[in-house]
């Protein structure tokens, strides 16, 4: 375990994911409602259940663990959740779980998220502008890469959180071209994509761990 506060440790990743799980659990109805308005209403429950399932595994991760250990727990739980978001988030976290086996510097983190979002775009046959989770993932990666030399991971992730939130917000006026929302045409307009919103919450959750850190 490193004490270098600029690098993401396993304990940091654990706290981050637990904070994200808390956020999703708390605001699950918001996600459900968005998916209800432009989808089939199961998204909130899907990912809340997955994250609840990850919780005990995450809690058991020792302080000496590395980031991939934490992300692997999240990946496994999402892969066991089904739906569309299950395998996609499973793959996203799965790619992060293939990141470096040491605390992550800003650039390492940017690199890991870059590889993760590419995998999601490939599996989902999608790219930005189609009203999906990648509309938050891609801007987040750009923000992480924008200042590759940023020493502290927290600062980079805080910027990524703002970019992801803007990205999610931008899905509001889009017509969906992927997933179930693509079937409802204009009815999806005005509704933020819940997958993108969850991604924004994920990046914001890192900030919530700051006080505790």
């Amino acid at each position, binding site marked *: 375990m490193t004490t270098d506060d600029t690098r993401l440790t396993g304990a940091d990743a654990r706290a981050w994911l637990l904070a994200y799980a808390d956020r999703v659990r708390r605001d699950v109805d918001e996600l459900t409602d968005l998916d209800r308005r432009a989808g089939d209403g199961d998204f909130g429950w899907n990912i809340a259940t997955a994250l609840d399932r990850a919780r005990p595994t995450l809690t058991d991760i020792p302080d000496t663990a590395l980031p991939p250990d934490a992300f692997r727990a999240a990946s496994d739980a999402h892969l066991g959740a089904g739906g569309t978001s299950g395998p996609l988030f499973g793959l996203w976290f799965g790619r992060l779980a293939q990141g470096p086996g040491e605390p992550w510097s800003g650039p390492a983190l940017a690199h890991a998220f870059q590889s993760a979002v590419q995998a999601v775009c490939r599996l989902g046959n999608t790219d930005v502008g189609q009203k999906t989770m990648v509309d938050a993932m891609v801007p987040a990666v750009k923000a992480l890469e924008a200042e590759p030399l940023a020493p502290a991971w927290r600062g980079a992730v805080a910027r990524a959180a703002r970019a992801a939130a803007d990205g999610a917000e931008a899905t509001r006026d889009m017509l969906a071209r992927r997933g179930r929302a*693509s079937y409802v045409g204009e009815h999806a307009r005005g509704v933020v994509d819940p997958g993108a919103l969850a991604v924004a919450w994920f990046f914001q959750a890192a900030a919530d761990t700051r006080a505790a850190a």
Partner: protein
Amino acid sequence: MSRYVLNDRDTFVRQAVEGLEAAHPGLVRMHDDPLFVTRRVPARGKVALVSGGGSGHEPLHTGLVGTGMLDAAVPGAVFTSPTALQVREAAQAVDTGAGVVMIVKNYTGDVLNFRIAAELLEDRHRVEVVIVDDDLATTSEDESAPGRRGTAAVLAVEKICGAVAETGAPADRVRDLGREVVARSATLGLALEACTNPMTGTRSFDLGPDQIEFGVGIHGERGIGTRASGTAAELVESLVRPLVEHLGLRRGDEVLAIVNGLGATHSLELGVVLREVRRSLAGSGIAPARSLSGSFVTSLDMRGFSVTLTALTEDLIELWDAPVRTPALTW
């Protein structure tokens, strides 16, 4: 507050499958962890047919496991695709060496999870996939879009693939026949009332008392337009006309007509609908060679129905007529 009879959401599907097994102990068997359903007496020496998808559409697919139809069905949570792991385990359990044909309704989640499962199985099993995308309401210009949804034509695909698999046909023949049925089929549905969420009891959308939602799928989402309601004859005509046109049906063609209740539609209503479908087709000089009416591909408690037409050949008629023995379909 839920208006459904259940214990809790997490166990809803699993407990329902326990009940299915209890009602049909001679036909189906439940496998737990991961959850899937197989025939009670496994078939040997034939291609294994595996389907599945989110729950809430019962009796599809779990109620269609049995002789002449599926070998395994893989239920996800309500409206949520099953996991790739579930699908892989189910396919492994029923493949006796002749390979597996997966029948998948075209939804991003189902396609993702079945494809991942197929990849996981690839090295030790022969796997073929038939994607069912019959819902005309979701026809799109966009080539890269997810494409039309899979709805009630999956019944025809499962019945006909099931029948040909039972004759010992190889996997590619079963797959090709499945794809042929898909190509020959189209569906349109409409709702008089949206379905309600199992936990909150809220409706997925609201309609005025004189309105219907045209072009709905089976996940409670809106269709392609809110329209004025009408008589059964008018409603049916609005569905049948585009189907006939899309399939290019002509006077004298033989078709299979499936009238499918979406959940809360009464058997009396489905009877009237089938009558009107036949009258509408008769107007084009077409008499359905075969008709099926019932609530087979439901959308929880949605009020409404879909009409599926499949252009038949003599071969397809024979396969449709072949014996079948499952919880929901037996002849």
